[in-house]
């Protein structure tokens, strides 16, 4: 990926070069991983190798950080990312059923991507829209006051878009 994606790599390198000018630049590892994920959609080993070499941070350390924080993906995601809110407010209003419905509908578990790479299913803890509970977010759009039926409809309409 990295060889074919020169533009992204250049942008990442420039980003790191800027950071290296500041003091204690190695403390910005998380910001760099955010940037890399923004560019590539996930954190590949080759990208992390690049960061290690440039920032002078051991790869085992980067791996430790990348796996510690839920926000970082180590595998590419699907076209649409579904985040079901499992915050307390959503939970007491039936978020668990919503999640089950999606799992059943897409035949994937949390953290997985459908075989056609169309949907990735994630859970999240509170999108801060408790008034609309239960909610889910697909990409950057929030869907509120969900029912199992509504969820299936939403998934179908997105899938049709695909066809």
């Amino acid at each position: 990926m990295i060889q074919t994606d020169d533009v992204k790599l250049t942008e990442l390198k420039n980003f790191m070069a800027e950071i290296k000018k500041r003091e204690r630049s190695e403390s910005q590892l998380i910001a760099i991983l955010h940037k890399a994920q923004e560019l590539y959609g996930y954190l590949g080993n080759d990208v992390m190798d690049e960061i290690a070499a440039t920032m002078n941070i051991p790869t085992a350390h980067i791996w430790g950080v990348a796996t510690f924080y839920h926000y970082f993906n180590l595998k590419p995601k699907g076209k649409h990312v579904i985040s079901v809110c499992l915050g307390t407010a959503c939970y007491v209003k039936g978020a668990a059923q919503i999640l089950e419905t999606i799992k059943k509908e897409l035949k994937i578990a949390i953290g997985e991507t459908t075989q056609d790479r169309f949907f990735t299913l994630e859970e999240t803890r509170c999108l801060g829209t408790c008034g609309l509970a239960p909610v889910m977010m697909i990409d950057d759009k929030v869907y509120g006051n969900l029912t199992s039926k509504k969820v299936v409809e939403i998934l179908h309409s997105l899938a049709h878009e695909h066809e």
Partner: protein
Amino acid sequence: MLTPLETVKKKRAEAINRIVGKGYLSTKRVYVGMATCEIAAGSKDVMEVFQTAIKNGLTDVYLSQKGCAGRCNLEPTVEVIEEGLVPVKYGRVTRDMAHQIIERHLKKGEIIEEWVIR
């Protein structure tokens, strides 16, 4: 040289001038909630309705965004403030309702009671 306190007072005066320059003294001020929760509930659409109306000639209205006041289940919210009157707060505003708020409240001065948050 000015003390920090004098500096900030001067800056405040300048800021107020700038706000006034943007039409703050219009007879009606409209505030649309634009926090994450409000946006999730659809406030961007509402904001757009007001923006379009102003672009298309709605006058004497000062439009601004605001953060979340905290009324989650009534979002998106819109406030219409008129000097000398109790501010009017509308809840669960949709595109349609926004159009009506413009037509009935902003243009004709009618407060649409059934949508007002008490």
